[in-house]
């Protein structure tokens, strides 16, 4: 059995190549912020970030630090803390290639990858300008019914899925509970990198209660024990609230690129 455990988030993301596509979790799920800092420290470049289906602080940090080439998402903002300042600024300056989507299209694209099929049909979307900006989304006639146009979403197969989860056992099984978009990400991605709050003594797959919310180890490439790896974001499986003063300080600093750079240098130190 390969030992999936690495000692630090820096080791966890060490071989994420520049230009990789990386699927990341939404703020209500498991966002790997400590590993995001590691990506910034290693000066990752031209990442194709795929928010599943939206992102916040994580995307803003990576964009401001110059790590992102393509942003694929249904939206980026800081939730109750307002607009994501670096995302907004970079797009307005034309410095970021946007691949705008809608939430269910990202879920559906990952589901197609999960099934190993090239595309998946999805209702809605027709008439939206998203279709103009997404030439990879096609409209066909439903072959089972006359005169029924329907959108096709191509499979999304990320190079890497990166997220934070509550538990992993020593065999490399990872427990995500009801945060099943994390399981979808792991199923769809070529490699899955996970930081976890805690190590579970025993086998997560032998207890049926836990097994239902467990990603089997064969989907998981690497794990790093990193308690608090989502801070300053909240982590609802652990009942953790977001660190509001810290995020507010970020929002104030990141209004300008210079403010962001200074804040980031302090934060990475």
């Amino acid at each position: 059995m390969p030992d999936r455990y690495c000692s630090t988030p820096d080791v966890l993301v060490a071989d994420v190549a520049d230009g990789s596509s990386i699927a990341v979790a939404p703020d209500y799920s498991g966002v790997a912020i400590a590993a995001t800092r590691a990506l910034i420290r290693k000066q990752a470049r031209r990442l194709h970030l795929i928010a599943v289906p939206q992102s916040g602080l994580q995307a803003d940090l990576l964009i401001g630090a110059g790590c992102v080439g393509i942003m694929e998402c249904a939206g980026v903002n800081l939730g109750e803390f307002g607009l994501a300042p670096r995302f907004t600024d970079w797009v307005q300056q034309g410095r970021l290639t946007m691949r705008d989507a809608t939430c269910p299209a990202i879920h559906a694209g990952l589901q197609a990858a999960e099934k190993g099929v090239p595309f998946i049909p999805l209702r809605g979307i027709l008439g939206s300008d998203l279709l103009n900006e997404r030439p990879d989304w096609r409209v066909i006639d439903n072959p089972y019914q006359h005169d029924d146009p329907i959108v096709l979403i191509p499979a999304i197969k990320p190079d890497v899925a990166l997220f934070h989860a509550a538990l992993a056992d020593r065999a490399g099984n990872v427990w995500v509970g009801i945060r099943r978009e994390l399981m979808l990400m792991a199923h769809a991605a070529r490699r899955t990198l996970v930081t976890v709050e805690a190590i579970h003594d025993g086998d997560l797959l032998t207890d049926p209660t836990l097994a239902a919310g467990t990603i089997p180890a064969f989907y998981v490439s690497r794990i790093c024990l990193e308690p608090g790896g989502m801070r300053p974001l909240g982590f609802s499986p652990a009942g953790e609230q977001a660190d509001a003063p810290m995020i507010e300080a970020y929002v104030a600093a990141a209004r300008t690129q210079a403010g962001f750079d200074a804040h980031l240098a302090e934060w990475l130190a």
Partner: protein
Amino acid sequence: MSGVDPARDGYTTEELLAIVMGRLTTGLGHIAVGALSPLPAAAALLARELSPRTEITILGSPRHMRFTDGGRELFDCAAQGRLDAFFLSGGQIDGQANINLVAIGDYVKPKRRFPGSFGSAYLYHLVPKVILFRQEHSPRVFVEHVDFVSAAGTSPRNVYRPGGPKHLVTEMAVMDFDAGPGRFRLNTVQPGYTEAELRKQTGFTYALPAEVRTTPAPTAEELALLRGPVREELVHAYPKFAREAYLAP
């Protein structure tokens, strides 16, 4: 323009808007609310107080979410017809009920970038009663044509579309949307506003009712529910909003 005066009227604009949207959703089976929507969330919570069999979902609030199959489940539910109402907003909203959540100006290098379309392009087609909500009522928001269509207000007849916009609620008015002509019709002006003021602040034309009426003021019962049980629940969904709550104490 004056609008609601809390000292004179005994309620705030935010309370009025939550109550108006609560009235529009009372009696429905399942009302869902997206992230970052404290007033629609208050409305859904109020609707549940008024019709206890109503199921509500507030995205981002673990206490108000019963989905167990990840982020996609809400959308799958909607496509199956298991959702009855949803709330959407827009950086721009036009007279054909197209909404823009993406950008003002050029898409590639916009004058102003908004967060993104989120679920709008999909849910607008599939949820039978979509309520458009935007507190600010100005010509900057309510334009003749949006710069970017995140989600289209109307569709050709051959497009599968069980859902769509039904109402628009703002600080100045409640309008109804008629998908036939693809046009809004004024339902009521909010207390403290006239139709002339409304017209001046709206960048598109809308149909008028035979007689312009004012939205009925919140009742004592509605205000008591909003300030009591609804507010207590809202703390769980929007801790920051509730901390800095602009609903009257």
